[in-house]
C-alpha cells in the first residue's frame, strides 16, 4: 500500500466519523425517550407532568427537607431546577442523575437520584486517574512497539 493510499483512507474514515457525529446529533433527540434539555430550557410548560431524566450539577442542598437545586446545561445556556424527594448526600458541585416527574416548570419530583460525582473533587479524581491510564497505555505500547520514521508506521521493537 502506498503512503498516499493510507492518507486517503484515513481521511475517508475521519470523514465517516464526522458524518456519524452529524447523524447522531440530528437524530438523537427523537430517539431519546425523555424531553431533552433544550426543550426544557425553552418550553418547560409543555412538559409539566412528563417523566424526565436529567444530568445536573448540584448548586444547593437541604438534606433535612430532602430538596436540592440543580443546574442543567442546555445549548442555550444553563437553567436551574428545584428537586423534591432528593434523598442522597452530595456536596454542591457534585453531579447527579435524576429520574422524576416535572411537577411545575422548574420543579422536579425525583423518583430516583444517582450520585455520579459526590463533589467536584470526585470529578478531578476521575480525570487525574484517567490521565494515569493514558500514560500507562503509552508506556506499555512503546515498550513493545516503536515508530519507524521512514515509513511512518508502528513496528515491533526487535529488542523488546
Amino acid at each position, binding site marked *: 500500500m502506498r503512503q498516499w493510499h493510507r492518507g486517503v483512507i484515513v481521511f475517508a474514515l475521519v470523514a465517516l466519523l464526522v458524518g456519524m457525529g452529524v447523524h447522531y446529533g440530528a437524530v438523537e433527540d427523537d430517539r431519546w425517550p425523555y424531553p431533552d434539555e433544550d426543550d426544557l430550557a425553552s418550553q418547560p410548560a409543555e412538559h409539566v407532568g412528563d417523566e424526565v431524566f436529567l444530568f445536573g450539577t448540584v448548586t444547593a442542598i437541604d438534606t433535612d427537607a430532602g430538596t436540592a437545586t440543580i443546574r442543567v446545561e442546555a445549548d442555550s445556556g444553563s437553567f436551574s431546577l428545584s428537586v423534591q424527594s432528593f434523598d442522597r448526600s452530595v456536596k454542591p458541585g457534585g453531579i447527579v442523575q435524576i429520574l422524576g416527574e416535572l411537577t411545575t416548570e422548574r420543579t422536579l419530583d425525583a423518583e430516583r437520584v444517582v450520585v455520579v460525582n459526590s463533589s467536584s473533587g470526585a470529578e478531578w479524581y476521575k480525570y487525574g486517574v484517567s490521565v494515569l491510564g493514558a500514560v500507562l497505555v503509552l508506556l506499555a505500547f512503546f515498550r513493545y512497539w516503536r515508530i519507524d520514521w521512514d515509513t511512518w*508506521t508502528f513496528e515491533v521493537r526487535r529488542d523488546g
Partner: protein
Amino acid sequence: MADLLSTVLVTYAAFTIASWWVDGLDQRWVVVAMGGAAIPDLVKIEILVDADVIENAIGLPFDYSPVASVAGVTVVAGIIALCFGEQWRRTAYAVLAAAGGFSLVIDGLRVYADGFANFYLYPLWVRPPTPGLFVSSDPAVLVVAIVVSGVTFGIDRWKQ
C-alpha cells in the same frame, strides 16, 4: 465511563487471560488491546473542543457520542490500524476493535437512573439494560481493577 486507568487494567487482565489460550496473542498485542480499550474515551475530546464549536463551524448538528459506540470503535480502530506496518494491520485491527468493544461493554454496566445504558450500540438505536454496577468516579472500581490485574500479572508470570 469508568476512569481510563481501571478500563486499561481490566483490559490488560482480560486479554492476558485470553492469551493463555489464543495462539499469537502475546504481550505486544495485549498492549495494543490496552490502547484499543481507550478508543471510546476519545469522546472526551469534547472537554477540549465543545460539540457546539463544531456545530458552528460546519453549520450542522453534531455529537461526539458515536466515538463511544460500536460504529465509532469500528471506524477508529481502522484509523489506528493503518498506523501500523503493513504486516501487522489485520491483527492490529482485530485486537483494537475487540478491545474497544470490550471497553464499551464494561462501560455499559454503569449506573443509569432509569436502568438503561446510553446508545452505545449505535448505529442501532437501542439502550441495553444495565445492571448499574458502578458510577464513573467510584474509587472502588479502581481497587477491583488493580486487584484483578495484579492477580492476572502474577499468574501470567508463574505460568512462564
